[in-house]
């Protein structure tokens, strides 16, 4: 027993020694401690920490379920990793930490994003007295993986919070089509590489199918999806393989068509949106050789949130397998051009041929006219 007590003392002293060396090891604040108060939906504060710096009542409630699904929680980031000025919680006080916390500095971790942002138009508005922090766009606690997010989701979550695209873009034809199929960043941060995503959509309900729904219908696992499709084993889904996929789904009563969107890669440079540099040269995209279509893929989200990207041959964009997608000039069906030029050549040759014969047969007509007289 004595031996046990001595051992406990030894371990206890060692633990205290460690705590002395590294205070947070002993005082580390668990998320659950924060949630003791922040799970209260009525918890609010008055603050001016918003884009217009006006006083507003801000909710301090954190939806734990949603936070648990956030990219930060998935990566093991705790409350105090961001709220670094909370070093301890004093439970003797009604408010266990100081009343006004410092704004979270996201660039501590997201350095490259921060550097790109500093050069952006959103940083420039600081001169007008408007401070725009990361969470004005990204939100606070519920930042999710957005690689598979659609144009609408990305737009609604970011740019459209402040900008109404219809107030600008007077020069842009087919505004609705552009705004629904092309992410803002594609034109407004032209340095960022682009990619085309193919999603499955039910045209009747206008609903996008989830990865699980597609896999369940096909009766395969995530790892079996590509081998099922890629019959020639070249690692790329080509036109006929895509057609087979549509057919397999149709046999399972899923009448999905491919919904195509042009998105920007999620790279730090995407934050470097500058004034006056937006791409306005339509031909950059509306061209058969456009680099905008170099990366075409189908994305599947696994249950753990990770994403599988399956490469698709860009030639499918020009095929009738994607009959619900057409990017003027850029993804034109080349066969139609051939048929068209045959029609034009047929018309021109017919007229010219007939004219030539008419010219050569002038003597015959003259002779007959003279004979008649």
């Amino acid at each position, binding site marked *: 027993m004595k031996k046990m007590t001595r051992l406990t003392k030894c371990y206890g002293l060692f633990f205290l020694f460690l705590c002395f060396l590294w205070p947070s090891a002993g005082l580390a604040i668990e998320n659950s401690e924060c949630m003791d108060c922040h799970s209260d939906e009525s918890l609010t504060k008055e603050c001016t920490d918003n884009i217009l710096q006006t006083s507003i009542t801000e909710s301090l409630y954190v939806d734990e379920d949603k936070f648990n699904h956030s990219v930060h929680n998935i990566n093991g980031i705790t409350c105090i990793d961001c709220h670094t000025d909370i070093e301890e919680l004093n439970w003797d006080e009604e408010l266990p930490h100081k009343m006004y916390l410092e704004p979270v500095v996201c660039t501590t971790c997201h350095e490259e994003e921060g550097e790109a942002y500093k050069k952006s138009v959103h940083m420039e508005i600081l001169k007008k007295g408007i401070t725009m922090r990361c969470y004005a766009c990204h939100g606070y606690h519920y930042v999710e993986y957005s690689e598979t997010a659609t144009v609408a989701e990305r737009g609604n979550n970011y740019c459209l919070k402040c900008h109404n695209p219809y107030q600008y873009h007077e020069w842009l034809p087919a505004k609705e089509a552009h705004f629904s199929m092309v992410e803002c960043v594609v034109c407004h941060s032209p340095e960022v590489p682009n990619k085309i995503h193919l999603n499955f959509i039910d045209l009747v309900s206008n609903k996008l199918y989830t990865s699980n729904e597609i896999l369940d219908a096909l009766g395969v696992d995530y790892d079996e999806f590509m081998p099922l499709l890629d019959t020639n084993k070249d690692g790329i889904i080509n036109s006929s393989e895509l057609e087979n996929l549509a057919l397999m789904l149709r046999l399972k009563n899923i009448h999905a068509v491919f919904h195509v969107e042009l998105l920007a890669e999620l790279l730090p440079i995407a934050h470097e949106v500058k004034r006056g540099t937006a791409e306005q040269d339509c031909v950059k995209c509306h061209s058969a050789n456009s680099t905008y279509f170099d990366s075409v893929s189908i994305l599947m989200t696994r249950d753990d949130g990770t994403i599988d990207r399956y490469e698709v041959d860009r030639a499918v964009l020009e095929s009738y397998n994607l*009959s619900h997608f057409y990017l003027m000039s850029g993804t*034109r*069906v080349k066969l139609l051009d051939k048929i068209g030029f045959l*029609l034009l050549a*047929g018309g021109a040759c017919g007229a010219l041929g*007939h004219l030539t014969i008419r010219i050569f047969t002038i003597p015959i007509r003259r002779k007959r006219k003279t004979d008649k007289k």
Partner: protein
Amino acid sequence: MNNEKRLYVHPGPVRVWHWVNALGFVILILTGFQIRFADILNIMPLQDAITIHNYVGFTLIGNYFIWLIYYLSTGKIKIYILDVRTLVPMAIKQMLYYGYGIFRGDENPHHMTPDNKFNALQQQAYAAIMLIFLPAQMLSGVFLWKVKGYSDYIHLLGGIKTIDTIHVILFFFFGSFVMIHCYLATLGHTPLAHFKAMFTGYEDH
């Protein structure tokens, strides 16, 4: 000039409609090429081509309805209605004339009158153009103009690529038609006779 030999075959509204249509067709074909081959052609900026194409397209849709209302209200639409009893023999006769007789200096088997100004081949071609191809071109054009707004109809018809295919094939067809039409217009009793008639309304007979 002997007025008795002249027939009034192209009334004013038809002539206005024709020349507005002709000018519109040329503009639509030129801008259409720019839109379809934006990466190859550089006649004008793409957005300008689209804007012009849209405005002219709608003008021609309006113009089409001038034609339709005029022909329906005057009953002249019957010149486009095919008579199945005489259609085939008359068409063969006309084909023989264009393919052979015309070179020998034979008389045109069709004699134009204000109520029967088209020969059997013209009648078939114009009936198809005015009652099928042009409406199809106009409708597909309107769908392509507002892809999102008409997405339900577009999906119903098989998708945007199907609509584009219709519009593009008809675009090439009309391009070819304009060339052949202009050439056939030189087959009057003088090369410019039909052109003049479409300005004056009177066809020399």
